[in-house]
């Protein structure tokens, strides 16, 4: 699981008055980047879920203007994938890991600098990422444990195929507009009945959050070599602990919801999760309609807690998160989030009106 990393990454902070300060090497969670690299191979058909490539290498793409040590993005690749040696990338590849990936590690490093007095609390700064040669692969490798841990093949290769055009004909597209040049997400179809069930559960929860697990199937589209996820069911997490602004999955919650999943058909796999944000936490609820129309808060808000939830339990690259947000209308808005370039982002999806 741990990638090979030939560099250590630090943040260069630019403070007021032009002062520059470099942080110690950042502690970076590379798992989403590794998952992204592995999943690219699965989407291309050069690997399967049961034969995920293990040898992943993380390397910097240098800033086109300033060159090393300034990083423009990073690339997590299978060793066989690397075509350009470090320093020769003239453009940032569209499927590279963007600098936003470093946001949390930089924030943590800055907090540490504040604690040690090297930075004043509240002091403004901008940051860039620098990379220096050095092996950082040992971080969190667990190498000192007196036992060995090795990932084993799951044995669940994708053998189904589906007709993507036919699915689209029976569906309505939702989500943000497509961005030119951005990596194309794999298509996700949510059965209308699943969406309706989740809305019913969320509505019944009133001012409390509600949530559950999404189940579905993965197929390869016929004629196009991409994966397609169809969400076919939801299982409510009845044992979750909810209030108006949070939803907690305890070990007991997992035990109960996964037991319910096991009682269902065996050909389903975990496709993700869903949860609701009740109207009581909608920040625009007291604002006039004309202000809401231009307010950036008047949308779907996938909180840092939600991102951490996704990272902790739904780190698989096919895993999506359906968010139901109760605003002014009786029906909630529904948005889908998923993994893209190692980050969680709003994505397009299709609501399947009729099963094909």
């Amino acid at each position, binding site marked *: 699981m741990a990638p090979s990393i030939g560099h250590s990454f630090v943040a260069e902070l630019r403070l007021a008055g032009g002062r520059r300060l470099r942080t110690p090497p950042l502690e970076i969670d590379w798992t989403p980047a590794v998952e992204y690299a592995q999943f690219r191979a699965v989407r291309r058909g050069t690997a399967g879920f049961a034969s995920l490539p293990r040898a992943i290498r993380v390397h910097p793409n240098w800033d086109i203007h300033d060159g090393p040590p300034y990083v423009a993005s990073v690339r997590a690749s299978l060793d066989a994938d690397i075509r350009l040696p470090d320093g020769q990338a003239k453009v940032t590849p569209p499927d590279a890991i963007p600098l936003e990936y470093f946001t949390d590690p930089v924030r943590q490093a800055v907090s540490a600098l504040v604690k040690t007095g090297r930075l004043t609390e509240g002091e403004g700064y901008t940051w860039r990422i620098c990379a220096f040669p050095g092996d950082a692969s040992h971080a969190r490798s667990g190498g000192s444990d007196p*036992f060995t841990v090795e990932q084993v093949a799951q044995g669940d290769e994708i053998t189904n195929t589906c007709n993507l055009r036919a699915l689209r004909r029976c569906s309505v597209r939702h989500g943000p507009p497509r961005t030119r040049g951005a990596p194309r997400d794999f298509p996700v179809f949510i059965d209308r009945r699943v969406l309706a069930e989740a809305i019913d559960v969320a509505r019944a929860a009133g001012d409390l959050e509600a949530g559950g697990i999404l189940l579905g199937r993965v197929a390869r589209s016929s004629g196009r070599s991409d994966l397609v996820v169809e969400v076919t069911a939801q299982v409510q997490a009845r044992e979750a602990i909810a209030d108006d602004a949070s939803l907690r999955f305890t070990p007991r919650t997992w035990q109960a919801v996964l037991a319910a999943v096991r009682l269902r058909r065996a050909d389903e796999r975990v496709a993700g999760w869903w949860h609701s944000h009740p109207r009581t936490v909608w920040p625009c609820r007291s604002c006039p309609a004309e202000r809401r129309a231009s307010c950036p808060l008047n949308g779907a808000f996938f909180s840092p807690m939600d991102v951490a939830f996704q990272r902790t339990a*739904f780190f698989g690259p096919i895993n999506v998160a359906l968010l139901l947000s109760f605003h002014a209308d009786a029906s909630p808005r529904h948005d889908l989030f998923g993994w893209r370039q190692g980050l969680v982002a709003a994505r397009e999806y299709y609501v399947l009106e009729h099963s094909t």
Partner: protein
Amino acid sequence: MTEVLERKLAVTARDATGQRTFAVRELPVDTTVHELVRGLVARMGLPAQDSAGAPQSFHAFLERDGRHLQASEIVGDALRDADEIVLHPDVQAGARVGAF
């Protein structure tokens, strides 16, 4: 003369949603469940911290017994060869008002 052989176990560990499975071998029987879980979290690519920077909590669920193991339990007492454990996180999602 008494010869004491160090007994070791081989078990299987999965993440909560069953997306990754790991073989754990050469597991000394005097390891605590806490030590096992801590090692597994690091090796399975699971996050060490929650969104607030606090340690992310995971509990080992023993499929055979249908129960969560206590962190202080000793592996040799709780587990058998070929047992399957699942790591269940204690994790929170939500729209905390202060985040807006």
